[in-house]
């Protein structure tokens, strides 16, 4: 509990920055694209959830229909996570679309992680359309347990 309290000012700032980024993303989404019948993917895609434990930072995104090979995931500068990929448009030349709600197209998303991670220790899994990226925290930011001696 004390651990969390210690990080709070940084967390607030980080959240603010991410919120700002999301707002920008949404703005572009609103004015940039969306002229076609289908929703097109844009800067704010995919939506990402980020959480952590003592050892790792986790990022998760819903990417149904994709393979891991269709994705490029990298960590730069220790705390910049980028997810890049392409959701192909459905290939059909016959029939009539009654509904087209699923977005498609190329996408790229970058975000700042709450703490620096080790770029050599990044694992990505894609299961049932959910991408999970597990990143080991840099050695210097890991909380250390301080042994307390008793008499």
């Amino acid at each position, binding site marked *: 509990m004390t651990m969390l309290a210690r990080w709070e000012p940084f967390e607030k700032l980080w959240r603010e920055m991410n919120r700002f980024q999301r707002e920008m993303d949404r703005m572009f989404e609103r004015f940039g694209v969306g002229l076609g019948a289908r929703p097109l993917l844009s800067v704010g895609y995919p939506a990402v959830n*980020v959480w952590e434990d003592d050892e790792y930072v986790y990022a998760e995104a*819903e990417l149904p*229909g994709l393979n891991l090979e269709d994705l490029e995931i990298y960590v730069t500068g220790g705390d910049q996570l980028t997810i890049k990929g392409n959701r192909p448009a459905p290939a059909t030349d016959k029939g009539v679309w009654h509904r087209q709600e699923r977005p498609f197209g190329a996408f790229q998303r970058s975000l700042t992680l709450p703490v620096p991670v080790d770029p050599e220790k990044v694992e990505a899994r894609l299961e*049932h359309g*959910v991408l999970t990226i597990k990143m080991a925290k840099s050695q210097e930011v890991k909380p250390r347990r301080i042994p307390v001696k008793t008499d």
Partner: protein
Amino acid sequence: MAEVNALGHKESKEVATPETTWGGTYYAPRVDILETDEELTFYCDLPGVRPEDLDLRFEKDELVIHGKVRPRYPEGKFWLEEYGTGDFYRAFTIYEEVDPDRISAELKRGVLVIHLPKREEVKPKRIAIRAE
């Protein structure tokens, strides 16, 4: 285009808007629907749903999709929470004459594809034109 929409829908909420019902949060999955001479095909995004957790029903012209999503986060807080998770639910009324016995579906990588073949008698038939 789809001037004559063969499909009704009864969800009142926007797509992907959480809806609180009996205790849980439900999300309407995003859906593409294609109609050809042969069948209606539904493509449905259900990220996080395993095949064994999907309940798909066709009853009295109603197609009901219910995908359970297993909780996947540990206790604690998020640094960033841009989307919520919960079960997926959506129902469609099908006005087309489909053959219930031949309905098939597959769920792969979080995408559900449902094939609803039309009954033979409602399939459009090509009429041969004789030349003089």
